[in-house]
């Protein structure tokens, strides 16, 4: 602290000891702008990342569900698939028999199985020995929409021009030695963004 002499009086000046109010206000303002911008940037980045992540997660979920359906139907015998609906008809559930192997020159078939859509929960369910004491049920997938993307149900029209009329979020259509599996998944992520994805796969019967 340095004494200053003015008009014979001595006063102590402490300019270096802190910030002026103006300095503080300016600093706080700049900091606020930086923080707000950073938070906006982070939020936008986070939202984009979340949306991308959710979409990818939904895709992954759909692929895993479809893979299960594909492998099950590949193992099925074509003539065991009921109903064998052909376009423009479809079914949202199929019953089928899976080949277990060959014994004594004859094919051995397993217990009847079913893949179907549970409408109220949007789940893809797999059953074995449905309706019996040995019934097994496994959820193969979730988030299935009430209708296929672009389709308005129960209007008797092929709104999404895929050749099928009024199809639900999961549909099976037999075409020759193959079955076409179509699936639409819908999910609202944590940011409230609605994600809708459509998938289609052709499965050739192997047995």
């Amino acid at each position, binding site marked *: 602290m*340095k004494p200053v002499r003015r008009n014979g009086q001595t006063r102590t000046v402490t*300019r*270096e000891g802190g910030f002026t109010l103006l300095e503080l206000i300016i600093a706080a303002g700049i900091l606020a702008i930086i923080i707000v911008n950073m938070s906006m940037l*982070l939020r936008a980045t986070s939202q984009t*990342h979340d949306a991308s*992540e959710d979409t*990818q*997660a939904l895709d*992954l979920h759909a*692929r*895993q569900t479809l*893979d299960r359906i594909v*492998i099950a139907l*590949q*193992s099925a015998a074509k003539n065991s698939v009921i109903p064998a609906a052909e376009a423009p008809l479809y079914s949202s559930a199929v019953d089928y028999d*899976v*080949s*277990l*192997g*060959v*014994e*004594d*020159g004859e*094919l051995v078939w397993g217990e009847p199985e079913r893949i179907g859509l549970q409408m109220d929960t949007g789940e893809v369910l797999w059953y074995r020995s449905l309706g019996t004491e040995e019934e097994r049920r496994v959820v193969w997938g979730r988030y299935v929409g009430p209708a296929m993307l672009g389709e308005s149900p129960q209007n008797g029209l092929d709104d999404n021009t895929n050749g099928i009329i009024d199809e639900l979020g999961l549909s099976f259509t037999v075409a020759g030695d193959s079955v076409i599996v179509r699936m639409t998944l819908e999910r609202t992520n944590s940011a409230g963004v609605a994600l809708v994805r459509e998938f289609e796969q052709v499965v050739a019967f*192997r*047995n």
Partner: protein
Amino acid sequence: MKTTHQRAHASRRGSALALSLMIVTIVALLSAMMLQLSSAHWRREAGAVDQKRAFYIAEAGLSEAIYGLLQGNSGIVGTQELPVRFGDGVFWTQAESDAQDIVHIESTALCGQARAKLAIAIELYYDNALNLGAFSGRNMTIGAGAYIDAYNSKNGPYSAPLPGAVLYRATVGSNGDVSVGGLRGLVPTTILGNVTPGPDKSVSVALGGNVVGNTSPRADSVELPLITIPAASWFGPMTVSPAGTGLLPSGTYAGPNMTIGTNATGTIVGPAIVVVDSLHLAGSARLRVDSSVGPVEIYVRQAMTTTALSSIVNVTGDPRGLSLWLDMSTRTGGVLSFAHQGAFHGSIYAPRADVAIAANAPVYGSVVAGGLTLAPGAQFHIDVSAGDLGSTDMSLSVLHWRPVAVPREIAGDLRYEPLADFAARGVALPAPGAGHVPIDMAVEYTRDDGEVRTFRGTEETFDRSVVDAVIEEVVQPPVRTENRVGQRRSWTDIDDPVTAKLKPVKGKRGMGPRDDDDDDDD
């Protein structure tokens, strides 16, 4: 001496550094968090991709195994200890046959941390119309009291199936309707197998008739290809005078006719191809075929006549050793009555002729004709391997395909990455083409579950721990060979007839009488 301003600046430097460090730390933490999220997502994606890769690598393994089988190998490709490398992963296959000669293949694939295993059951056969068993291009009539079943000559001579244990199903078919007779006296008509009529046609079974199999019509008609007559060296007439004997050694022969007189015996030693315009067996003539070294194929362009006392004797009793290819190109009608004394072991292919099988001539083999009739009381034992003769290419039909659970010892350690492990150990994995295991041994055995299996491969690739009892073991069996005579593939080595010399008997041109007695062993 420091000024006041200098001291003030010095006091503020530290706070700027702290602020910067704090911001950098926050950004670093956020980055690390984002990286962690991305990394977790990437791992999930990579796992799903690897699983698909493993599945398709296993599919590739099945294809490679089938290719190996068609090439005469064992169908085993690589082993668990030394798999073959394919794409970003590895696979190995195992192959065994069951009692019905159905080949069961399993392919196991590893890719990254994913595993997949697929099983397939296939039936290999030769593209040959003789595989049709008993087939008629038009309507088919099976007389009352007739008996039809099937066996596999590869497994040895015919033996009647035990009650309730039909090992092979007979294949009886037609492009038209099939009429199955009923009782002949007290003897019912019995067919142990499928009877398949033509499209929109039907099978009628008279009272007392019994078909143990399917009678559904076929989806499409079967087109019987015309016979392609092979090129053969001109030899001239082949005639054996009454009561005489004659011999045709291995080779190819072409001539206007083959005539064997009453009580005469003509012998053809295989492998041989004989092409004639007509074949006549008079009275009690006997055409003897020795197919112990190779098959005999007889092509008849126009006409064939036999009598109820004549016979065509295949001394080995193996239907694959004798085939009659009856072109009958000039035949305009009528029925080729295959009258025959005693059993006929062989196959007949006559797409333009109507063939009638007599009651006193049990057939062991295959008969495919433009029209086919079995006389009342006729017996037909269809050889499911008859098509091995005269075939040109092997084909396969897939009976069964399915994914199977990966064994715990393979699926258990998910940290194990095969390519990294083998690379770390300095082991170079072979390519699929180099991983095929040849056939050095064949073991027919009973598994713990009672199933009979036949393993073909090498000692190193045979897992004896699954063997309950060995039925038969053959070390170094003959390798499958391709032979010019019909490009036959067989477990039996056959001399190449191209190198066989034409050896006329006693310097005569033709099948002249022989002085030496024929040591018949039939």
